[in-house]
């Protein structure tokens, strides 16, 4: 069977990937394929059912799902392959894919990695204790709430005060749930205004800084968490822990193909044109570092697509 060929393979259909696809096709590039492992493209905004999306790239404010819908509408006619997971990134633009028709490979002139990011799990944070139900990230919580209309905990402890904690607050509130407290290992709240406002005025619950978890108790479900801070230990009764922030770029494909990782950003090493160490492979969006806004990622996706087009042109490929 002849191997399929593409001018550009984009891995990941979030704001960066969809915006890159839109820009590439708008400029007339043929043979662009976008692989999305979920059943629907749109990326993380799909499960952020609150306002705050589109400010940077669209100049107006939407909810996450509306924003994702808008991004999808811009890429009508694109060869968008959902339910496809890229399993290997080989040399010379060889991309191995698992799709509903089975596994196959594609040779691509250029590859754009836009695989996004996820929050560090309780396990990767080396959290102590057993593994009762109720240990989850904001992303997991959002999916429970906005996709399935269920909530795994009603009175959780929220760990982390990065800006995503604001989303945690809104997501919990959407379901009438109330956190018991916010903690952060840093000495200061990382997004002071938003989190302090959220904690204090929406829920009226405390935030503890310089505080970390020392034990997690509960058999089936979390029942109690002991935290330790500047004023000693305290036990908090709660039915879950939401680990927010501490983003991990989704770099498994990049690491497996042994492209260098930047120890500071934890994303791939890139040059000024979004190019990784492999001249055929580019990266854009939150895979480059921790989470920034969807709009930032969209603009990056657009810029990366332009860089790729210029590169293809410079290398004599007609499009």
């Amino acid at each position: 069977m002849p191997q399929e060929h593409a001018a550009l393979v984009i891995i990941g259909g979030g704001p960066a990937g969809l915006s890159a696809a839109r820009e590439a096709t708008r400029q007339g590039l043929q043979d662009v394929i976008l692989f999305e492992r979920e059943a629907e493209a749109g990326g993380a905004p799909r499960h952020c059912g609150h306002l705050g999306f589109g400010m940077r790239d669209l100049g107006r404010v939407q909810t996450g799902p509306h924003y994702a819908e808008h991004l999808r509408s811009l890429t009508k006619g694109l060869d968008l392959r959902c339910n496809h997971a890229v399993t290997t990134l080989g040399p010379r633009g060889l991309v191995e894919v698992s799709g509903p028709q089975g596994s196959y490979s594609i040779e691509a002139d250029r590859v754009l990695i836009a695989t996004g990011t996820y929050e560090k799990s309780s396990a990767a944070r080396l959290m102590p204790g057993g593994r009762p139900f109720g240990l989850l990230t904001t992303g997991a919580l959002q999916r429970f709430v906005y996709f399935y209309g269920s909530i795994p905990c009603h009175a959780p402890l929220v760990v982390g005060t990065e800006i995503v904690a604001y989303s945690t607050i809104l997501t919990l509130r959407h379901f009438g749930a109330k956190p018991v407290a916010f903690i952060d290992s840093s000495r200061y709240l990382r997004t002071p205004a938003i989190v302090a406002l959220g904690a204090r005025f929406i829920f009226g619950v405390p935030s503890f800084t310089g505080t970390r978890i020392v034990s997690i108790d509960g058999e089936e479900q979390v029942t109690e968490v002991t935290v330790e801070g500047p004023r000693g230990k305290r036990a908090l009764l709660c039915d879950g822990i939401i680990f927010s922030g501490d983003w991990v770029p989704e770099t498994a494909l990049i690491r497996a193909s042994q492209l260098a990782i930047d120890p500071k950003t934890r994303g791939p090493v890139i040059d000024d044109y979004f190019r990784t160490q492999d001249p055929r492979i580019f990266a854009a969006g939150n895979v480059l570092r921790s989470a920034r806004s969807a709009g930032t990622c969209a603009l990056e996706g657009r810029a990366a697509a332009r860089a790729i087009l210029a590169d293809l042109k410079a290398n004599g490929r007609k499009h």
Partner: protein
Amino acid sequence: MNYIASVSQAGSPSSDPTFDVAVIGGGVVGCAVLRDLTLAGLKCLLLERGADLLSGASKANSAILHTGFDTSPRSLEVSLLQSGRRRYLEVHERLGLPLLKTDAVMVAWTPEETARFPELIAKAGTNGVPGVRPLPLDELRQIHPYLSDTAVAALRVPGEHIIDPWSAPLAYALQAVVNGAHVERLAEVMQAEREEDYWTLTTPHARFRAKVIINCAGNFGDLIEAFARKAPFQIKPRKGQFVIFDKTAQRLMPTIVLPVPNERTKGIVLCPTIFGNVLVGPTADDQDDRQHAGVDTATLQKLLAEAARIVPALEEEPVTATFAGLRPATERRDYIIEALPAESWITVAGIRSTGLTAALGISGYVTGLVEEHFFRLKPLSEPVWLKVPNLAEHLPRDHQRPGRGNLICFCELVTEDEIEVALSGPLPAGDLGGLKRRTRAALGRCQGFNCLGAVCNMANDRLLSPLPLQK
């Protein structure tokens, strides 16, 4: 994928409520015993206290198929471990159980450790394990290029391999069930009383009658034993903590790396897993709690440091998972397996970390005791065989199958069909942990950031132990 449904009529209770045998404990040993006695023609029952099988000691181990090269010579353990290994190798393909042939190297980091090699080589000879020999350092580097260059000496240990710690016992239990055995979960044995011809076992939801009891209760072995006699042994749970590295680390781990064992424990092992990760562990700490095994941050950090000392490149690899398990150690070194003919009872206790390898050896031995003391056996003439779904990374996975459904878990590439299969059939997953063990969903690098909601949504109404989800 629907093979399980086609045989689901088997395993229903018959009119006579008395079972020939009740196996107490649905760990790997109990599952293997259930299988062998069912295939031997007996009417068998398995009682498990958890909502799913493998809820105790069997849920956490290093998943090595041992050769027994360094096990105490002439012990019951070495003999059953080796017959268990042989039997696994005989049946694994027929049951769909994977085998990753890695071999092992044992590495000495000090001259004192090197000094123990002659004794270990002699032991391997006594135990009949061929090919254990000193490995020159340049050969070691060829076999394992990522190993720290501070190694002082090494032994080659061929035949130490990696298997799936969960699909094996599940296959044993499933084969038993499709051949007529009954498995009851959430069935902690609270009382066991002996009348003339049979035992009556009381569990929270039902009572059961059985002529012979086989105590495979793992960390609760001595408590169950007390129903038959004053237990001549005491379970001293030994906690082991583990860290699992990301799949990108597996290229760094071409073989199992064993430490030189000391008197108390086999020590901390580094090895690939059948799922494509790298594992480091276990630690060994005695504790009183038989049920709860939590990790602690300081120990996990020590394990990470130990891993990076042995394979420095692991320092850069992300952690995927951490867990702790309890091994049912006793005050004795060897397994305790004996028949009490007067009590219609067989004790299977003190099966520590080698239980996964030894399980089919133990079940064969127990079958011999059953025949010697209790029943004349008439093995099933045409037992039903089935294959369990493959989760091993080096063999074809469901996501590669043309016509597969949606992906649910992206890190582990688990399909909707795989989750559906695990939730159906004669022995569906009983709780979320059991579902994860059967499918690997939510056990990958994001630990459910992406799929936990989807998995719980599919599973919630169908588990024996429902999730605390609120709508």
